[in-house]
């Protein structure tokens, strides 16, 4: 039986070490000792994962909003057009990995269609353009319920779509990966690509939120306006 550990001495600035953290470390070290992968493998993957967030996706949307020809290319061939912003889905040491797939499609929201993405089978996610998936995206809670009760799930995120708008759920069960291109909000006339990219947040590209002119996800909500 394990011993009971009521308190661990706080380690540096990070506070208590949880048993899960100990488990994670133990599993990783054992795996490396047994040659299942190398420490370098792990380091490289971590380094890549930290470097990728939703910035690539935001850039794609901002460019599409400001450049109709880019938008047309992006909608016609997402995989190829990503290269224009430095994202190569086929390069495992670049911004794709072997478990990502290579057919990328951008789903355009319109006044009559609102897209939202899910992977019911295993939570595939367009990592090269959005970074790591949110924890909630990977839960059966989201994955089972979004396909069945999409409007209820969207409402849990604070998003309510009118009845006449088609809520179109995309279940990425095969080799395609998807990202939503939200509609450009009013009040952004004359904005630069950079300013536009800042309001295209991760959740707007999954489809559980709409871009807001006053929300960039870069600071906590308590610091942003009302």
């Amino acid at each position, binding site marked *: 039986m394990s011993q009971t550990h009521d308190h661990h001495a706080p380690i540096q600035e990070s506070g208590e070490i949880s048993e899960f*953290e100990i488990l994670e470390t133990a599993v990783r070290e054992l795996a490396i000792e047994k040659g299942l992968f190398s420490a370098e493998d792990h380091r490289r993957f971590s380094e890549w994962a930290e470097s990728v967030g939703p910035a690539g996706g935001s850039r794609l949307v901002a460019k599409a909003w400001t450049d109709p020809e880019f938008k047309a290319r992006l909608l016609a061939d997402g995989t190829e057009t990503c290269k224009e912003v430095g994202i190569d889905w086929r390069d495992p040491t670049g911004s794709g990995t072997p478990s990502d797939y290579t057919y990328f499609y951008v789903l355009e929201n319109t006044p009559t269609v609102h897209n939202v993405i899910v992977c019911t089978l295993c939570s595939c996610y367009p990592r090269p353009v959005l970074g790591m998936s949110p924890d909630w995206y990977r839960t059966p809670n989201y994955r089972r319920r979004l396909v069945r009760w999409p409007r209820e799930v969207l409402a849990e995120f604070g998003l309510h779509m009118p009845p006449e708008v088609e809520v179109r759920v995309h279940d990425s069960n095969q080799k395609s990966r998807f990202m939503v291109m939200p509609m450009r909000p009013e009040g952004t006339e004359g904005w630069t690509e950079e300013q536009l990219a800042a309001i295209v947040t991760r959740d707007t590209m999954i489809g559980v939120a709409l871009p807001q002119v006053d929300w960039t996800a870069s600071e906590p909500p308590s610091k942003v306006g009302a």
Partner: protein
Amino acid sequence: MSDGYRVLFDTLEPGSRRESSLPELDGKPAPWESSMQATCECLSWRGALDNLERREAEDELGETIYLDFPVRARSAVVTAHALLDLGIIDQEELRSKMEAVRERFERE
């Protein structure tokens, strides 16, 4: 499917609970969670444990044997379970490695 492993049940601290709503599951992953993701990717990449199989096991075991565990810990617990099932590691060596790690963290 085997039963759960004692060494894994022992990681569940009293008072911890499963997250109960979607927003509770949001928030930046802790460093160890990101590290675990990297481990899972490496295990799949180098062939020891396929991502899809592991994800399916996370769903199945996370909703049954390891139902009481926080969802955030699922990858860690289920990956360990899978490696135990595969016979790549055994409970004794996992337990003693965890003891060594714990000691190392407490020592620093």
